[in-house]
């Protein structure tokens, strides 16, 4: 151990060997004080009102896992296990409603708790404390980074999955009569989904040799001008394949959007609701629907 150095003296950065020696000492300290440091940390988490979605037992259990992984990362200098743990943890807690600031918050609290315990232990040897901190800080920062980034990446992955699922909710193209297709659209349409719907519809027209298509947008609350334009293009492209499009279920907001953006309404065949649309389609196709007996009794 070297003499304590004055603050103004330039201190040489520790050599790699010295750093590992210091880290080993640090890890030993953290293992020895595992119980009280974990408890201190869990206490601080509750005081900071973090992880409110979880019970005390759950917080302590997770705190234990994080602590042990943290110490192991400090010991081995490798972060793969920590990354895997961070992703696993995120996968579990994201559905519980845990937010990014909470995850970042608890990791920083752990960093503080451990740093404080180092201050307490090495308060009599300022020079050694500095060297220990020199070894500790980069590793601790990298750990905080790894856990936070792991959490955020997991959130982004979840969001992408949900977006894909929404896109696939996309619209079955349904044949309800010979030459008649229905395309019921539900939810939020962005220009990309709109283009996907158009391609799906055009292929459906060709496959089913449809002459009339009813596009029902009752389930669509609003539409911006980009999507409205794609809708108009869908109508025009369907005509090129010999099919007539009837659009049904326009909400007042969408009606307003279409008029505001100056859609050529002569090109758009619209009917108020799906029932009306199907009746109009049947008329165009030459069907006449007649009820010739009472409804069948239920057996």
């Amino acid at each position, binding site marked *: 151990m070297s003499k304590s150095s004055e603050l103004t003296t330039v201190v040489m950065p520790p050599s790699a060997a010295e750093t590992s020696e210091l880290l080993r000492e640090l890890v030993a300290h953290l293992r020895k004080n595992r119980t009280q440091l974990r408890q201190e940390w869990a206490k601080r988490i509750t005081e900071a009102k973090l992880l409110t979605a979880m019970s005390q037992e759950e917080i302590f259990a997770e705190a234990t896992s994080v602590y042990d992984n943290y110490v192991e990362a400090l010991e081995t200098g490798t972060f793969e296990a920590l990354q895997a743990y961070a992703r696993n943890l995120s996968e579990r807690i994201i559905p519980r409603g845990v937010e990014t600031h909470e995850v970042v918050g608890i990791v920083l609290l752990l960093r503080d708790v451990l740093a404080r315990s180092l201050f307490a232990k090495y308060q009599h040897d300022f020079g050694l404390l500095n060297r220990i901190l020199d070894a500790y800080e980069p590793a601790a920062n990298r750990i905080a980074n790894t856990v936070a980034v792991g959490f955020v990446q997991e959130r982004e992955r979840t969001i992408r999955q949900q977006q894909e699922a929404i896109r696939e909710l996309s619209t079955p193209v349904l044949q309800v009569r010979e030459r008649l297709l229905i395309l019921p659209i539900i939810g939020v349409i962005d220009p990309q989904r709109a283009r996907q719907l158009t*391609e799906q519809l*055009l292929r459906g027209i*060709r496959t089913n*040799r449809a002459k009339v298509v009813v596009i029902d947008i009752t389930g669509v609350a609003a539409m911006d001008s980009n999507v409205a334009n794609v809708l108009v*293009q869908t109508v025009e*492209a*369907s*005509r*090129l*394949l010999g099919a007539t499009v009837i659009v049904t279920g326009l909400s007042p907001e969408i009606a307003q959007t279409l008029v505001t953006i100056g859609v050529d309404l002569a090109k758009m065949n619209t009917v108020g609701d799906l029932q009306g649309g199907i009746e109009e389609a049947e008329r165009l196709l030459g069907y006449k629907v007649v009820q010739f007996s009472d409804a069948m009794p239920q057996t």
Partner: protein
Amino acid sequence: MLSNGDERQNVEVPILKQGHYLIATFQAALTDEDLLKLQEGLVGQVGKFRSRGVIVDVTALDVMDSFAARTLRALAHMVRLRGAETFIVGIQPEVAFAMVQLGLTLEGVSTALDLEEAIYLLDRRVKGAKVRGK
């Protein structure tokens, strides 16, 4: 129309007669000259055979540019002036999508999914006309 030495091979599109209708089937993309030759040929033959309908089948086309779209529109108008109805058939979904994005809507030109459909529709129109005593 004389060819000006275009790199693409000039292709004659055969015009087939089927009853009262003329049918022209594209085998591949046509040069501008070929399109104009076809237009000329169809307009001429409508008169010669007193055809009631012209069907242009573009199933083999995987792209339709603005010159082709304009030529087909002009063809439909010219043919109508000579007493016949034109149908463009076989536009592929991807081609239709690309066309509307470029604003090529073939407005005023009748379209149908395929040859069978066009003949059916033309038959109905022709019959309708006969019934009305034209």
